[in-house]
Each structure stands twice: as C-alpha cells, then as structure tokens.
C-alpha cells in the first residue's frame, strides 16, 4: 500500500528535492545560480512541449482529445470560483482572488515530475495532456481578476489599483498568453507537432537523455527555494497565520484533485492521463500567475499566495500528492 509512496520517494528527482530542502533547512550555502535555475526551467518547458507536440503529431486528433482539452480549460476556469468562495471570509478580496488564480492555474514542474513518475513505472500517457497543461496556465488569471473586480469595493479598486487600473481585461488575456513559460510550452508544442517524429530523432538525445538529470538539478533548486519560503513564513508579516496557510495549502489541492477525478471518470481517461489531469488541477502556479498578479493585482500580497503555492502545495504534491492521486485513480477509475 504505502509502497507507492516509498517508490516515489526513492526516485532521484524526489531525493534531490529533499536534498535541496535539507540544504536550506540547515542553512547550507548550496545554491543554484539564478540564471541557471531559469535555464533549467526553460529546458524542461522546451522538452516537455516538444515531446508533447511530437506525440500529438502521431496520435489521432479526434473528438475525445478535444473533449479533454475543453474540460481542462473549464476546470482551470471553475477552480478559481471554488477557491475564492472558500477563502473570501478569511482573506482580503485581493488575496482571495490572487490565490484563486494561483490554484486554478498549474505547475509545469509538478506535471513534468509526474510524467517522469509515470515513465519510471512504464505507464503510458498521451501527448495532448501537454497541450492541456499549456491551455490551463492562463484562464485562471482572467477569472481571478474578474472575481476581484466583482467583489472589491469601487473605492478600493480606484485608490489601491493605481498601477493595476491601467490594465484592461484584454491586456491581461494577452499578457497571460505572452508569459514566457506559456509561450515557450505552446511554441515547442507546435514545433514538435510540425516536425513530428522526424524532428524528434534530431534532438532526441538532448530531450530524452538529459530530461531526468536536469529535472533532478531543478528540483534541487526548488527544494532550496521552497524550504526558504517555508522558513520565512514564520517570520514575515503575512496577513494570515502560517497555520491556516498550511491548512489551505493542503485542503485546496485535495479538493481540486477530487474534482479532477470526477472529470477523468466522465472522460473515461486511462491511468496515466487521468493522473496527469488530476495533477494539473491539484497543482498551483508559482511562476506565470504570481508574475501576472504583481502587474494586474499588486495589492494582493505575494507572501500569501506565492508562499502557499510554493512552500506548501508544491512539496505536498511532489512527495505525497502524486502517489496519493495515483492510488485514487487505481481505486476509482480502473
């Protein structure tokens, strides 16, 4: 039973994540230079996008694929509503809206780690889920901002929105699709789809053979960063008690996972695809959405929504979530 957890925990990527967390916990000066971390992240997006595109080019693009993509978008747009109404009593309107956007969107690295989890167990998964991931990045941003505009008192919007106010809804949509990570995944996806397996053979070694190694190094860095945030949560002036941030950072992904299990059941997805859809729903953005929120909703406090996403939900999903959701898939879907 718990062997799933142990198997997951003893894969190199997870172990390096934990190593990073230990380094930060004990205040080691181990550190991945910032441009390197960015490069590793670009590589992962590039590789997963390209892989997904190549897979797409060889599989039939039929109605069931379209259905999955639509459901993915709908999920990404619905989740923020749920999160917002869960949180609106405890958070300020801006914080609730930004957190809602964060959890509606996805974490590409959690997704990537889950694909490596599936590959290690030889469970197949479909390339179009990469497309689903790319499409799920942005809608939540728009919904989150809508929620804010609907619920904030007009005066608040005016005065504190001094910066954000200039940004019209259409701008937000545009900016969220032009976010570097979204653009790179979508672009690589399209390129992989154009070049197909032929293009793949050309860059196959670069994409396949380095993948896990680079994932290990990136998770090492993420472990450091996540643990630093977790330690900062105690000291820093967040609007919320750390305890309730931890609570919500665990409850929300679990709730979203349930929603995704139901959707996967409706869509009749296979084991691998179901798990990936769940992981997308249960994961929270810590790059695209926070970056967009700082521009469009600067009055929301990043030490609330970014910390929850990065320091609580991300490690939870990596260490416990993925195998847990996998058990769920096995129980309910197959």
């Amino acid at each position, binding site marked *: 039973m718990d062997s799933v957890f142990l198997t997951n925990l003893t894969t190199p990527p997870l172990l390096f994540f934990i190593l990073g967390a230990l380094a930060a916990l004990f205040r080691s000066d181990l550190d991945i230079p*910032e441009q390197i971390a960015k490069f590793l992240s670009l590589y992962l997006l590039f590789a997963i996008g390209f892989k997904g595109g190549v897979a797409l080019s060889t599989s039939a693009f039929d109605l069931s694929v379209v259905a999955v993509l639509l459901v993915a978008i709908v999920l990404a747009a619905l989740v923020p509503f749920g999160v917002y109404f869960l949180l609106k009593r405890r958070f300020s309107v801006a914080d609730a809206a930004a957190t809602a956007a964060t959890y509606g969107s996805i974490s590409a690295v959690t997704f990537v780690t889950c694909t490596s989890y599936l590959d290690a167990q030889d469970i197949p998964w479909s390339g179009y889920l990469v497309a689903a991931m790319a499409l799920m990045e942005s809608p939540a941003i728009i919904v989150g901002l809508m929620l804010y505009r609907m619920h904030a008192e007009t005066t608040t919007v005016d005065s504190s929105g001094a910066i954000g106010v200039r940004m019209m809804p259409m701008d937000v949509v545009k900016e969220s699709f032009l976010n570097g990570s979204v653009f790179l995944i979508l672009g690589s996806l399209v390129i992989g789809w154009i070049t197909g397996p032929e293009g793949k053979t050309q860059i196959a070694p670069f994409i396949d053979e380095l993948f896990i190694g680079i994932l290990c190094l990136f998770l090492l860095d993420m472990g450091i960063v996540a643990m630093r945030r977790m330690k900062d949560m105690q000291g820093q002036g967040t609007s919320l008690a750390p305890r309730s941030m931890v609570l919500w950072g665990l409850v929300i992904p679990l709730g979203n996972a349930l929603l995704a299990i139901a959707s996967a059941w409706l869509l009749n997805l296979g084991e691998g695809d179901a798990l990936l859809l769940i992981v997308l729903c249960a994961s929270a953005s810590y790059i695209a959405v926070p970056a967009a929120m700082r521009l469009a909703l600067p009055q929301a406090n990043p030490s609330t929504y970014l910390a929850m996403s990065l320091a609580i939900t991300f490690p939870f999903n990596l260490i416990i979530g993925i195998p847990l959701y996998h058990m769920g898939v096995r129980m309910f879907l197959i």
Partner: protein
Amino acid sequence: MKPCKRIEIVIEQALATRTADLLTELGAPGFTLIDRASGRGDRGYRRADELTGTSTNCIFLIACDDEETLTKIVEGVRPMLSISGGICLVSDAQWVRH
C-alpha cells in the same frame, strides 16, 4: 559639469518593465537599470532566488537636471513603491557633460 538630481529607485523586479515605461512616459532623460538585487526591508527578505521576480529587487538610476521632471518622477513612482515596497532616494550631483 552642471548640477542635477540623482534619483535611485529600488523596486520589485516584477515591476521593472512597467517602471521603465513609466519613466519614459514621465519624461526622464534616461535611466540605467541594474537587475536582480536582493535586499531586506519592512516586507522581510527578498532573496532574488525565484523566477517570478516578486522576491527580487531591481535598481533604477536616473540623472535628472529638471526640477519639474524630478517631481513628476517622484510622484509617479510613489504609488508603485507603496504597493510593491522599495525605496526612492534623491540626492545632489554634478553631471559631466560630454
């Protein structure tokens, strides 16, 4: 050499592009931008270690020889600073003309 004001703004990296656009709009004669500084202030540490730029600072340096533009810049960045955190310092300097 002619007297001028030296404006120095420390602000969140995530707002760098917006601040640069704002400076241009407000008529700053130019600026120099240093990316990716870390720091500590009222909002705790900014470690410059993550990818969103919300926990990273950047530094703008502006030489400005015009009182009016100075006021515009200071008033223009003030609301950004109160939301994002950061500092703005103004001091006297001599601008070597070339």
